[in-house]
């Protein structure tokens, strides 16, 4: 029962993350939805599968959980830096606190 609840909540978080990727207005906000809710959903789904008792070898399920928790923030940080520096149009960036530190080109629609 606990396993089924974990699986259902995990799949629901993945669906909510995908809805956020569709609905939010700019790349950084979409990344906010994709990384945080996506990590939580995947972790809960893997934990639910491991707790279900249906799988013969559950110990290797810990590896993707730990790996996702370590690498998804790193990847999101790299991707956010790339998105900022590439000049993608960003909403609500009137007073840019990073303007003195990093050179950001004028916004280009095609990027």
């Amino acid at each position, binding site marked *: 029962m606990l396993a*089924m609840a974990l*699986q*259902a909540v*995990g*799949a*629901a978080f*993945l*669906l909510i*993350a*995908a*809805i956020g*990727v*569709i609905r939010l207005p700019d*790349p950084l906000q*979409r*990344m906010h939805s*994709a*990384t945080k809710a*996506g*990590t939580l*959903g*995947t972790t809960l*789904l*893997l934990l*639910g*599968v*491991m707790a*279900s008792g*249906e*799988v*013969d*070898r*559950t*110990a*290797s*399920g810990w*590896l*993707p959980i730990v*790996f*996702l928790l370590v*690498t*998804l923030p*790193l*990847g*999101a940080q*790299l*991707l956010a*830096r*790339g*998105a900022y*520096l*590439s*000049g*993608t*149009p960003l909403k609500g960036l009137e007073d840019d606190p990073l303007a003195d530190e990093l050179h950001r*080109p004028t916004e280009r*629609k*095609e*990027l």
Partner: protein
Amino acid sequence: MNGQDTFVAILGIVLALALILAGWRMVRGPSFADRFVALDMLTAIAVGFAALTALSTGRGAFLDIALGVSLMNFVATAAFAVFLERKRKEP
């Protein structure tokens, strides 16, 4: 088809809906950063699908496939981030 199989099928349909939504964002764009964020989301959903396959077949080897997909996801995200940073230097 017992209750467990029905439950796994419902979870698969939910994940397929999420896959369609993220794929729509990947096709539509509008910028490269959006597409790479959508790729991140797509691989997270693929890890979820690998876990569901492990559940429905009862084979733990599919959890190793989840690890492989997440490894590829990190390398691809890092490479695409460097690509985005280099795009800026062009006129």
